[in-house]
């Protein structure tokens, strides 16, 4: 778990640096090494590592548009993910998906760039497992800003009424871009949404990775044993803007400072030290993680960009069908 959180944190910090390459001095979103939007997850790591620690390769995870930490925790190939973010031919999605739309069928990981829309496919994966009498589970990640969406609420209902093996994980960072939670819902915590669906709703405060791990053990176990879905609600902290380039002028300074101060990774390291893990060992794990991140970034930089003609492939499985549309 510690390895996952430090890998994810270092990855986000390095992506932030790489993203700014070529975008200075005047910020131009379409310029530079990493084009398009980039939504970073620094401060969310505990929610990813604490839950995914209980998952197997065959379990399905759907992530939202802020996906890297979850992908890392689920075991998505770091090199190919990075190549995808850099828009390279050997990326996970051949350069077509980009950072919000990562698909790695080898470890059953998928993303959606649209709020809450990963919930129904997670229910579908659980339905498939249920019909095939397999004991795999599905986990849908979403932000607290997404809990007012029909896709989320309808998914809770469908999963509950069909007793499906799904864990819904809300990463509650308090901010839906510029909207603080209290201005968009009168429901006190996302976990309370579960009450309306006769489903357990569990809240973990203070993005405590160990507490997330324990709550997720119960939730994943319940799903795997055929006892239905759980809504797990994890308090996390957004250490960066909603997307790279977001100046966060709407956000009070004290809130940003609080996010910096409350660091789940430092909390986890302290827990480990208390349980007798030596600093040397923690350092070694961190250094290994940093090396893997550097390796992935360097590998991705060396990969070729796709041939423009590749744009016409993959619309359909049968390429001849794709060729019938478009420019003749």
């Amino acid at each position, binding site marked *: 778990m510690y390895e996952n959180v430090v890998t994810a944190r270092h990855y986000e910090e390095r992506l932030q640096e790489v993203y700014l390459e070529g975008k200075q001095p005047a910020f131009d979103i379409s310029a530079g090494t990493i084009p398009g939007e980039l939504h970073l997850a620094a401060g969310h790591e505990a929610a990813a590592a604490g839950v995914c620690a209980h998952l197997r390769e065959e379990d399905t995870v759907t992530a939202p548009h802020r996906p890297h930490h979850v992908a890392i925790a689920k075991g998505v190939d770091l090199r190919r993910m990075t190549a995808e973010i850099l828009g390279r031919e050997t990326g996970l999605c051949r350069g077509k998906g980009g950072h919000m*739309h990562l698909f790695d069928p080898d470890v059953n990981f998928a993303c959606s760039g649209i709020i809450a829309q990963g919930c129904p496919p997670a229910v579908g994966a659980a339905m498939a497992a249920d019909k095939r009498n397999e004991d795999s589970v599905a986990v849908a990640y979403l932000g607290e800003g997404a809990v*007012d969406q029909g896709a989320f609420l309808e998914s809770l209902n469908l999963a509950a009424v069909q007793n499906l093996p799904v864990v819904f994980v809300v990463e509650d960072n308090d901010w839906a871009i510029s909207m603080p939670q209290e201005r968009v819902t009168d429901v006190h915590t996302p976990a309370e949404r579960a009450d309306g669906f006769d489903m357990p709703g569990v809240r973990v405060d203070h993005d405590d990775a160990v507490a997330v791990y324990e709550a997720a053990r119960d939730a994943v176990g319940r799903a795997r044993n055929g006892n239905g879905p759980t809504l797990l609600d994890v308090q996390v902290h957004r250490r960066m803007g909603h997307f790279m380039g977001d100046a966060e002028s709407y956000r009070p300074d004290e809130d940003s400072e609080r996010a910096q101060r409350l660091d789940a990774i430092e909390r986890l390291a302290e827990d480990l030290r208390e349980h007798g893990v030596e600093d040397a060992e923690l350092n070694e794990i961190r250094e290994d993680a940093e090396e893997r991140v550097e390796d992935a970034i360097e590998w991705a930089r060396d990969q070729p960009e796709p041939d423009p003609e590749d744009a016409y492939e993959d619309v359909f499985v049968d390429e001849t069908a794709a060729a019938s549309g478009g420019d003749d």
Partner: protein
Amino acid sequence: MSKPASDPGEGSADRELTMSRAMVDAIASEMRESEDVFYMGEDVQDYGGIFDSTEGLLDEFGRDRIMDVPISETAYVGAAVGAAQSGMRPIAEIMFADFVGVCLDQVYNQMAKNTYMSGGSVNVPMVLTTAVGGTYNDAAQHSQTLYGLFAHLPGMKVVVPSTAYDAKGLMHAAVRDDDPVVYMFHKRLMGIGWMPAPEGPKTPVPDEDYTIPLGEANVKREGDDVTVVTLGLHVHRALEAADELEGDVDVEVIDLRTLVPFDTETVVDSVRKTGNLVVVDEDYESFGVTSEVTARVAERAPEALEAVERVAVPDVPIPYSRPLENEVNPDSDDIVEAVESLK
């Protein structure tokens, strides 16, 4: 609502605005004019709209009239339909046109059809604003243009400004219209700092109110050889292509400005003069704007039509990687090539 003022003409203004400022100028003016006008969307209060579509409005009008809403498009777009049917004039924003799928029923079954289904006994005087377009590598769920989707389904008027001057006049017309109007602005034209605009959308904009009637295309450049019909960002790309071709081919560029109602006459008259038609669109090629414009010309003036070319996104989702997106998104070179292929 107040009667539309007559169009004072671009030349009367001594200030230049970006497209977003011009949009906001019209919205503010309509909100001052009538308490019935209000704006709902995500991040439209403190943030001022991700694409600056409401920048500065919160200060003047407060949180009751510039409303941040939960990320619940079905609820708030549907609420705009209800408020409009109750006699108000709401403006609801869907941050990216791609997100309309979340609330499509409220758009195409409620907003668009209630006037008809009620036999005209109710109407829905609302504006649905939304950002369209790619060119910034944000991939398939954040880059669609979707003009064809809204224009295909009956009951919605659809406007697409390409300049600040038009953005203001079309917004005044949209808010005052008694039908639902979908107002689709291209992100790349708004004049936001992190997405540089091409030359062109920033124009003089008069202080006073004026409307641009829905359904009047604008001949942006006169020419005798080839008619290029387009809208939005691609008006600027077509003008660039026309400049490049100057001396070889005399290109006429028509900015449609509105898709519903559609100004068939201006397009057909132009093709009667030039005999050649190129239609340029950032939406998908099949069953879209390029098909529709071509069909209308073929129906009305088959004898005048010598040749047609369509330049649009070739029926693939918008890819992420830069060389892939550049391949599918029409640029001025593609327009030059299409025009040259006709001669």
